[in-house]
């Protein structure tokens, strides 16, 4: 595969063969070397062969091999000639991250840390086969799909401030619950309000370093020593089923023989099936926002027991697996395109109307969690990202080695020691599962964030050091 260096941290696979556009890789030399080891770039090339894809396919610094499309990949489609492809945003629709900040003093938190972590481990529903503890009727689920966090606000699970600090105010328009199958609703309804398993987590941290004081102040994290709460989860089984259902329908309707990968099943954006999928996906996304909101509600109830006078304020909540119609500059012309983000966080610079009023002058808040035991970062969106990456940057550290390799090379005892040495408390169903997500199974988050910052596709605002992790 031919890879050309364009400039520092920017590489390109030029258009060749069946590719409709080139692939742009935003990575350091070190990261590129690890990306080249698996099928990430082959998957990006496949994305570049899709009909109606515009400008270039984006590969971000945390990219790794996925299924169909790579993780850390972004592609945009012309609304008339392009397609919508569920595999290019993944099964975990609206997997995303929210950050909450408290005015709890670090020294006070540390005194109660052990008890708080135990309470979280016990009362935050996580892991597999676990029901959320909330119980909603099928009719309520339809309202969740339609109204998102507005529904949660009406039910007393969200504050007004919460609503205004979520991407699209936690309610994506044009969601249609009638396009979500009974099977999908059946999978999701008892899971609403639960963390899930795999790489999903809740992380308590502390602001350790601030790089951009002015922006940090607007984000409410202007003071070193503030205790923070990160929640990473998605739309649970409901979203997975929405993707599965529509991949099946699309390949039945449009076939898959001409596709570079069967997992890239797609339908024209402007078709009944394309519209149906987008309506169902938006419903699943609303479900994802509500899921993180209910987790926040449960978290606040627990923290209240220890710190009755402190509130947890939502900084922002942003998806990293989602499809959006957005305006972007395509070959010198601003036009609406259908942006598919898979393991990519939206990074919009100052002025974009999609950003909550509170952050419209700074750019959108971005959260890049590391793996357990490493730092998490807060960044801010930029105009440069709009220019280079359809307004996107990384979403995490990105896996370095497979789960089976992690299980072979890292023992639960090693992981336990590493976390102990770093003074991080882990609450997890089992250490065997936690090994899959061990810090050494991931790329160096510091390097990923550094590249994003140097490229200017997401600028560093603050660094958070983890104190405790509840693993799904």
């Amino acid at each position, binding site marked *: 595969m031919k890879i050309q260096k364009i400039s520092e941290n920017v590489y390109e696979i030029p258009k060749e063969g069946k590719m409709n556009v080139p692939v742009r890789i935003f990575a350091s030399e070190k990261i590129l070397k690890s990306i080249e080891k*698996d099928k*990430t770039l082959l998957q990006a090339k496949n994305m570049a062969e899709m009909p109606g894809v515009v400008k270039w396919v984006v590969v971000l610094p945390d990219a*790794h*091999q*996925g*299924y*169909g499309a790579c*993780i850390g990949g972004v592609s945009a489609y012309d609304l008339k000639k392009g397609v919508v492809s569920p*595999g290019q945003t*993944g*099964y*975990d629709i609206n997997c995303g991250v929210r950050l909450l900040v408290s005015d709890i003093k670090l020294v006070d938190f540390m005194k109660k840390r052990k008890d708080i972590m135990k309470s979280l481990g016990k009362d935050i529903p996580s*892991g*597999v*086969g676990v029901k959320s503890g909330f119980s909603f009727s099928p009719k309520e689920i339809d309202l969740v799909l339609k109204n998102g966090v507005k529904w949660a606000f009406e039910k007393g699970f969200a504050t007004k401030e919460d609503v205004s600090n979520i991407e699209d105010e936690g309610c994506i328009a044009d969601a249609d619950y009638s396009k979500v199958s009974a*099977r999908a609703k*059946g*999978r999701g309804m*008892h*899971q609403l309000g639960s963390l*899930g*398993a*795999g790489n999903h987590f809740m992380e308590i941290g502390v602001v350790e370093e601030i790089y951009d004081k002015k922006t940090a102040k607007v984000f409410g994290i202007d003071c070193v020593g503030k205790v923070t709460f990160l929640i990473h989860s998605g739309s649970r*089984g409901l979203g*997975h*089923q929405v*993707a*599965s259902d529509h*991949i*099946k329908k699309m*390949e039945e309707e449009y076939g*898959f023989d001409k596709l570079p*990968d*069967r*997992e890239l*099943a797609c339908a024209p954006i402007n078709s009944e099936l394309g519209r149906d999928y987008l309506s169902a996906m938006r419903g699943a996304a609303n479900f994802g926002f509500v899921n993180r909101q209910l987790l926040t509600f449960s978290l606040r109830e627990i923290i209240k027991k220890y710190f009755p006078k402190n509130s947890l304020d939502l900084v922002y909540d942003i998806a990293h697996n989602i499809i959006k119609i957005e305006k972007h500059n395509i070959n010198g012309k601003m036009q609406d395109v259908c942006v598919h983000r898979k393991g990519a966080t939206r990074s919009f610079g100052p002025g974009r109307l999609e950003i909550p009023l509170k952050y419209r002058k700074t750019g959108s808040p971005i959260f890049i969690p590391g793996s357990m035991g490493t730092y998490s970062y807060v960044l801010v969106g930029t105009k440069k990202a709009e220019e280079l990456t359809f307004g996107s940057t990384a979403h995490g550290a990105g*896996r*370095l*080695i*497979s*789960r*089976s*390799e992690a299980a072979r090379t890292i023992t639960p005892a090693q992981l336990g020691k590493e976390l102990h040495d770093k003074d991080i408390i882990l609450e997890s*169903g*089992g250490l*065997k*599962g936690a090994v*899959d997500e061990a810090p050494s199974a991931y790329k160096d988050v510091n390097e990923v964030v550094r590249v994003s910052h140097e490229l200017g596709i997401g600028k560093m605002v603050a660094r958070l050091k983890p104190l405790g992790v509840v693993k799904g």
Partner: protein
Amino acid sequence: MLRVINAFKTSNEVEVKLFIEYFTNINMAKKFEFLEHTGDVKFRAYGKNVGEVFQNCALAVSSVFSRNGEINETGKKEFVLSENNYESLLYQFIEELIYLFDVDAFVVSRAEVKLTEENGKITAYVLVYGDDASNYSDLDAIKAPTYAEMYIKRLNNKKWEAQVVVDV
């Protein structure tokens, strides 16, 4: 291996037992195997026919859920699926195992699969054995099957092989 060959020559009881164990183990090892995949879980399953490949895929799925542990057989579930190609049928088959897990908290141990083909339609009659997920403390989740890198094909030795990547 030498002792195994000796079993042919001598018909010694101990050697014959070794011989049987040796080939049973080859067979055991060949039911399915996991392959490297950075983000998700990839496996290959084998069988003398497509039905057996499906059964061995169920073993692989059980192995993912149980993190290579054992799942008891305290209950069973039945379902029937129809598709017009093997890959779609396998996708739906794995999805059904995930659905049973998510909705009924039923985790698969193994499956019996009978396939029939008529007028281009392939039907799978499936009997799944397994246990209640709440009896296990450290299970793993599978989000979905995928079509990425998926194939079911007949090998030169007339045996069948399937490859699957599941999203975890």
